[in-house]
């Protein structure tokens, strides 16, 4: 999408059955084509979009199957007006040129970019830098969130080791995502653990709460206490995107199986008067219409019996499943972190599968606090901040047509593994 930054409009030609727009990009000329219905439905005038909310108000039933462009012209140097054939009985469509260029479906050909970043090292951010004399420092916060969106894993240092301090950090982004574990949860040894995490056992690699249609987006784990005398207990991460890509290269047929045959996830939970029984089936790897990986679902502890599958499918599934697991446990794919008190590890719970080494605490203890954000709310705030930071000096904030501003933002197309087809 960043290709659109350097697009320059040259001219347009009415081809009746479509609109042809000539643009230049880095001194090369390109031809963009716009289907009539696309133009009609993306009219940005008050007749088509409610001004204050940006919601579309076109009655689809009044839009005919056949649409032809009678004429197309430029108005005020920035708008394109399209007049439709009389028979279609459609009001003129008004589309800002910038909208057209930023949202062209055929822009830069079909997009095969992965839209995420990888790194061998972990990025650190300083909680103290997020405030300058008690006022939020949006630039620093944006740096942190941008990194979290693109790389999916980072650590914030110097978060005071007081209970519930984590809330202060996370609520700078959005309201906490309440789950069956409450708004905040304590990770330490419980006598009757609700979850193996609340014990000293090692944990297998997993995404949290995978049995939900929309598992938590971002997870935060704040190390309150991790005495040196405690042996083990490191937090481990594997980038689901990277191992899924590797798997695709090494075993394309098995990869295909894991995108088609759904796994079964389940949860039975009985706590403080509330009983939960969730069963949910979905493939371990989700791909969009371009075969781009848009989701990874891995949580062996929460698996249930495969359902609704033929004998052949079950056989194929397990062959792929066992092979994929090898990549999960391949040491070269694992990042291990021993968190220090005051550090908060922030990670994309959909993309990074995580686990923990078992630990022994003869004396001393290990205590983390955790919470989640939904992916929508996280990503929304990232974009809101990007917009704020980019437009700080922009006088025309009031004039912004919110319907098309999203494409000026670089981070809107970051792949955060939430099954978004983009």
């Amino acid at each position, binding site marked *: 999408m960043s290709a659109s930054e350097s697009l320059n409009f040259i001219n347009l030609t009415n081809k009746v059955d479509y609109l042809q727009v000539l643009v230049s990009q880095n001194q090369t000329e390109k031809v963009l084509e716009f289907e009539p219905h696309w133009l009609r439905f993306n009219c940005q005038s008050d007749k088509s979009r409610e001004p204050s909310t940006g919601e579309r108000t076109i009655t689809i039933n009044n839009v005919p199957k056949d649409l032809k462009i009678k004429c197309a012209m430029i108005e005020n140097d920035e708008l394109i007006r399209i007049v439709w054939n009389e028979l279609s009985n459609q009001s003129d469509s008004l589309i800002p040129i910038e909208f057209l260029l930023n949202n062209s479906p055929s822009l830069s050909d079909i997009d095969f970019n992965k839209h995420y970043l990888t790194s061998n090292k972990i990025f650190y951010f300083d909680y103290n830098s997020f405030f300058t004399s008690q006022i939020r420092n949006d630039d620093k916060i944006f740096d942190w969130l941008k990194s979290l969106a693109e790389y999916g894993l980072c650590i914030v240092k110097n978060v005071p080791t007081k209970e519930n301090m984590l809330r202060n950090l996370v609520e700078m982004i959005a309201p906490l995502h309440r789950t069956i574990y409450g708004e905040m949860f304590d990770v330490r040894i419980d006598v009757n653990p609700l979850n193996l995490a609340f014990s000293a056992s090692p944990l297998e690699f997993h995404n949290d709460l995978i049995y939900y249609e929309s598992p938590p987006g971002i997870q935060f784990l704040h190390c309150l206490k991790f005495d040196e005398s405690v042996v083990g207990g490191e937090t481990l991460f594997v980038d689901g995107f990277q191992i899924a890509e590797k798997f695709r290269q090494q075993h394309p047929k098995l990869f295909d199986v894991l995108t088609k045959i759904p796994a079964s996830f389940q949860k039975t939970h009985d706590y403080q008067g509330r009983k939960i029984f969730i069963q949910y089936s979905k493939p371990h790897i989700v791909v969009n219409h371009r075969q781009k990986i848009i989701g990874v679902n891995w949580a062996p502890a929460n698996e249930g019996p495969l359902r609704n599958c033929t004998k052949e499918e079950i056989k194929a599934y397990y062959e792929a499943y066992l092979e994929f697991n090898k990549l999960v446990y391949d040491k070269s794919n694992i990042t291990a972190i021993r968190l220090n008190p005051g550090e908060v590890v922030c990670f994309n719970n959909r993309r990074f599968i995580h686990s923990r080494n078992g630990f022994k605490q003869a004396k001393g203890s290990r205590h983390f606090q955790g919470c989640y954000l939904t992916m929508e709310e996280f990503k929304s705030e990232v974009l809101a901040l990007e917009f704020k930071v980019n437009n700080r000096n922009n006088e025309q904030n009031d004039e912004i047509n*919110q319907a098309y501003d999203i494409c000026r933002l670089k981070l809107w197309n970051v792949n955060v593994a939430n099954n978004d087809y983009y």
Partner: protein
Amino acid sequence: MFKKLILNPISKNIFQKKEIFSKLNFPIKTYHNQVKIINIENKRTSLELFVSVDKEEKLLCFDPHWLRFNCQSENSRQIGTGQRIIPIQNVPKILLIDSVKKKDDCIVIKWDVDSNQPDTIIPIEFLINNNPSELVNDDRYIPCKEIKFFEYFELVDSNGNRNETKIFEWLRHMMLYGLTIVKNLPTEKDMIKNLAELISPIQSTIYDQLFDVKVDQNPINIAYSSVGLEFHMDLMYYESAPGIQFLHCLKFDPEIIGGESIFADAFHIAELFRQKYPDLFSTLTKIPATFQKIHIERKRPVYMVYQRPHIALNHRGKIVAVNWAPPFEGPLTNLSPKETKSYYRAYVEFAKFVYSYNKTIVYRLNPGEAACFNNRRILHARNSFIPNNGIRHFQGCYVNIDEFKSEALVKEFQMKYANASKNVNHIKLDLRKTIVGNQDYY
């Protein structure tokens, strides 16, 4: 798995329970009374069980890896949490069954020595109820053609005592049909929370916990005005759009003209569309639409954009979700001209289908009535209205779709098995197979 529940006395007696069941028309067939193993055959690379379940004979076939991973012994499932603890990397690619025997109510499988796997123990009930090769073909929902009414004080009395049987009836109806109206919910502010919380904690969104639907001067949503609203689902730009939507009519003055609520079953519409236009249907399952909410001038600016096809299918080609929200659509991107053309051909035709669907339900909510419907299945719309100085005020909230389904299943379990110590993972619940539109592949 669940501790025994003390329900109200009437359900302690199994015979009385059957009577309650027949009043509510519960099918009793999943209450397996007679399971007989006729023959067990070890085929080394598979296990065959010839059984008779309620006098029906069937041959069940099980893959060795499926058996291994579904072992229910302490070696494989952690007792307290039920989580699976099998180290996958220790399971070999090739698994051969050495021997099988029946022990109490379980099957015990010994694996061949080279595989180095502990014995696998699985209750027979689990095998029968979770047989993977049972392809699910029966009706997974019932088209919604009318409204069923419930009384609030039959669900929970004035002292706050819940009537679990009635609540289950209400949940079950919403699972199968997608739409109910609860009458006589006191028209006090926030009462709707009490109703919703009978199911689960409220799903909080960018519209907060509870939202007011009435005419606003500067509406942040076109719903907060007097214009008509097309058929749509709420918050389609969320990966897990709200599950059950509650709309509690607090005030709807008689002088107001119009403003009726309209409902239509998107599952049924999509099925009919598939029958009439299979190619166009296919297009809508493949080419993603764009849903968005971009609103800066708002207390909390919102930038949400999400792409997904209008219709989602599982690996069996069954419809597992419908996503329809025209007011919240954004520009299609990342498509060739051919795909764009093909999309719009299908889109315009589907929209026509939605408009011409003749089983829509039109209802003017009365104060005290709360419409409760599956926001992932039942399209809702509203006729425009002329206020004439009257007030139309609804209060609304949402419950997450997975939590709604969970509560319905828990209740079914409690209704049927409260006094039998059954493990919820071993038995088969009727409502498990109901499609609720949350993209569950099952």
